[in-house]
């Protein structure tokens, strides 16, 4: 298959997945696997599993991490660009059109009230997304401690109106993870 043809196919597949998947990046993973590993065979099963780990271990939207990776594997740097574009275009278009009408829509009293109800629901959805992620991680004293300290610090600082950026939490806990890893490695070596 010529490269041009691959790039076009890649673009169309990403466009399709971007336009029809609800639930964000995590929901996309199984669709991407179906499309690119099983049907198109552009990635091996192992490459795809690597992709999932890389997407989770790097910053940024999971869907973008995935489409850049798959695009590169299919057709190099051009593939990465085209794949990522294909993934973004449907979202961008749909949301931009909605944003044009949204304020007008909200000026209807019933709609504004409906959105007050929705706001409550979204708080629940955020909480349940956190719980779902919690179920999927390795639970040990270290991870529970990091989680608990983060939750308590963030709530207390917010109540006391102390500014402490989210970014610091991420940097500190990444550093703590590294230190914890080095200590456990050292202990393992000593006990050998």
């Amino acid at each position: 298959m010529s490269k041009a043809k691959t790039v076009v196919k890649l673009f169309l597949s990403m466009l399709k997945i971007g336009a029809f998947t609800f639930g964000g990046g995590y929901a996309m993973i199984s669709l991407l696997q179906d499309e690119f590993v099983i049907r198109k065979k552009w990635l091996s099963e192992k490459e795809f599993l690597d992709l999932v780990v890389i997407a989770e271990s790097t910053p940024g939207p999971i869907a973008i991490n995935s489409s850049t990776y798959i695009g590169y594997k299919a057709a190099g740097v051009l593939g990465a660009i085209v794949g990522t574009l294909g993934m973004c275009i449907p979202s961008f278009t749909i949301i931009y059109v909605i944003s044009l009408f949204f304020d007008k829509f909200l000026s209807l009293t019933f709609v504004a009230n409906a959105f007050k109800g929705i706001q409550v629901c979204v708080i629940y959805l955020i909480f349940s997304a956190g719980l779902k992620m919690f179920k999927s991680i390795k639970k040990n004293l270290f991870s529970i401690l990091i989680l608990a300290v983060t939750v308590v610090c963030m709530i207390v600082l917010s109540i006391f109106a102390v500014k402490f950026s989210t970014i610091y939490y991420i940097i500190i806990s990444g550093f703590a993870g590294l230190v914890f890893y080095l200590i456990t490695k050292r202990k393992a070596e000593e006990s050998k």
Partner: protein
Amino acid sequence: MIYLDLFLTFLEIGAVSFGGGYGMISLIRELTVSKGWLTQSELLNFIAVSESTPGPIAINMATFIGSHKGGVLGAFLATLGVVLPAFIIILIIVIFLKNFIKYPAVQGIMAGISPCVIGLILATAIIMFLSVGINISVLGDTFKPNLTALIILAAVILTAFIYKKATDKKISPVLLILISAVLGGVLYSV
């Protein structure tokens, strides 16, 4: 300048947030609400729309907030900002760092970051609940339960719970959003 500000803010969000769209919410909230770009209610509305439309939630939110503050150019720049770091980092990894995930140090760092991101998500939800549900944002606020909001929350939790028990599947977020929209529309209107 709002355009540059939108681009840089979302570049920062794209560069440091882990855990996908929901993992970004705490930072998005911090950066946009503090700048006065959005109120907390607007942010929650945008999350609801982002969740109820197809596509990556992070892209939907960047486009929405960008468009809200800076029209089509703002939407474009915010989206570009949130995409660029992920795009560049993944290219560097696939081209130069093929063994990235095998480095034990990376696993060590992620063992710290993953629970932290979950903590950030849970804490953000709790902080939002305190302000919407009982009107407490900072110390000194008077405790004032918002009954309608608490009823809707109880109904949402109950619906999700019953659905899970009855079908053994998780209820779709879009369905929950629809139910809460009807409840909000009716309860706040009477």
